[in-house]
């Protein structure tokens, strides 16, 4: 699979590229700033771009802006944003633009090659990827009352996986459940949370995350 790596830290960029190459990805380009990234992507046409959220010149959200620009130019390309921030608002910002082929992972995941490789593949296949730590944190907000308390443990598991961006098939594989069981859980969750079941997988991620983010 063809990928591009963008990070202004040269050691990290080279290390990540090497790790991805070792794992079987084809790193077709590397970039140190947003302009270079756009150039490299235009030339090498990767399937997924892996972008650090902090890039020059201000090191705030240039990575996000570049990701949005890449998606605007080519909605069929996957974008995986790596970030130091555990807050869900950056992930939401990405999802709200184009809720598909987009991922938001914590940066330290890059040494956990299995998670990283899985995320890149899922993004390339059209899914969304939200870092499990972010979802876990949203789920962990204690609620004494409210619809979340009415879910069974299994339903909570399914809800978390939905929020992380897994498709029904993905959830089946993760939990070793049959597609029928997963579908039943999903519709049960939606009715308990009083959410309208939205058509399409991508809108579902957004709906679930929005629900979890609402205090």
């Amino acid at each position: 699979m063809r990928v591009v790596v963008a990070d202004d830290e040269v050691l990290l960029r080279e290390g990540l590229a090497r790790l991805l190459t070792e794992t079987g990805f084809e790193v077709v380009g590397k970039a140190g700033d947003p302009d270079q990234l756009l150039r490299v992507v235009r030339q090498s046409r990767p399937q997924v771009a892996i972008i650090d959220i902090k890039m020059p010149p201000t090191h705030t959200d240039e990575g996000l802006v570049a990701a949005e620009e890449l998606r605007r130019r080519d909605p069929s390309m996957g974008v995986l944003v790596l970030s130091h921030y555990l807050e869900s608002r950056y992930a939401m910002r990405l999802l709200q633009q184009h809720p598909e082929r987009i991922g938001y992972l914590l940066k330290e995941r890059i040494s956990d090659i299995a998670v990283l490789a899985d995320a890149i593949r899922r993004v390339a296949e059209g899914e969304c990827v939200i870092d499990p730590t972010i979802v876990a944190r949203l789920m962990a907000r204690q609620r004494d009352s409210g619809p979340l308390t009415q879910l069974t443990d299994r339903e909570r598991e399914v809800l978390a996986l939905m929020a992380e961006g897994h498709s029904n098939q993905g959830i089946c594989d993760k939990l070793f459940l049959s597609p029928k069981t997963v579908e039943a859980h999903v519709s049960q969750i939606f009715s308990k949370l009083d959410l309208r079941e939205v058509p399409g997988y991508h809108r579902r991620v957004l709906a679930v995350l929005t629900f979890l983010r609402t205090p």
Partner: protein
Amino acid sequence: MALAYGGAVVALGILPALFLDPVGQGCGRCPGNLLGVFDSPHAAQTLNRVAVQLGLAWALLLIALLGWRLFRSTAATRRLIAPVVVPAIVYLSLVAWSFQHALGRGFLSNDALDHRLWAGQAVALVAVALGVAWEWVRGRRLRSTLARLVVELAASPPPGGLGAALSETLGDPSLTLLYPLPDGRRVDAYGRPAEPAQEQAVTPLVRGGRRVALLVHRPGLLDDPGLAGEIAAAARLALDNERLQAQVRAQFEDLRASRVRIVERGDTERRRLERDLHDGAQQRLVSLALSLRLACLEPSAERDMVVLQEAEAEVRRAVAELRELAHGLYPAALSEEGLGAALQAMAEATSTPLTLTRLPEGRFDPKVEAAAYFLVAETLKRSRPRRAAVDVASVDGRLIVEVEIDQRLSEDLTDLEDRVGALDGRLLVRATSGAETRIRAELPCG
């Protein structure tokens, strides 16, 4: 004026008298001229004519001088000198007229027109006298008003009261008082930096060789010499009082500004640390984890593999801890998106169930946002409540932040009070009937 008068007396009276012998002119009943040097009617006549011309010239010159002075004066001065100068001009005009009347015949006489002119001159002279008297009365009145002012001011007026009283006494609504500070700045009665407007005149009020205040007023108001001194003397106590108050207020203002700067510097430092942690330490650690992972790809022995994996897991834990630390220092959401986003992120992150009732729209001064954010963050961190509710609303130019926790505060909030106080805000802590505590901060934000 004296020169003109002396000249006229000599030219008109004495010089011709030296050459006129009335007896020689056929006036049998006239006494002999004791001053007569020799009898020369022709010389007397010539001298008389020259004297009349001289008198006319003097009178016209004086009229021109007075008119010029009146014209050049400011409006205030004109009002002040008009009661004397105007009748004086009338008088001189009448004098000029009688000289002009005498010009034809070459000497002063007493025909019917002369009589009427003399009567007019007498009236004008009385008017001049009245003008001088009026001037004196006005000075007295001003002094007594100033004296009344002293009594009024003894009741220590509010800041700016002295300026207002002087403005009323002197009839200049634009009048203000400025006080020079030892460091050279000028402040108003409230201690705020102030400078006189371009078109205003400035009169220093000096006492004991020191400028105690600057009277800023419309030009010409204090042309009356000595008036400034009078004011300085009359309002001595009040001036000192207000000057010292202004000084104290200015110092207070300086102190407040320095407090704001201290808080601001602290926040800047927090933000810098947050960035340093993210961009520096955290980045390094991620790199290290990556290197370890790369080393794992080609381990030399099974034991090495285990060690390396443990090391990598350890590094990842350090990264997570660093992130929490950096976030606590100064959350990126606060600087990038403002108070609402930062509080929402806090509600996501904290283990305490946190209800956000209301959040304000839009951005506020970063200092205000930081004060509000850290008030909530620190309250939760120190009291560790089982539940908390936060309400933030912008009302009438103030940001009202209310934090309600389900227990008593165990630690004091002095540092938060300082932060809020530095922004001219108030912090109120109230324990409600149950075991709850409500903390309310009001921060000026408009």
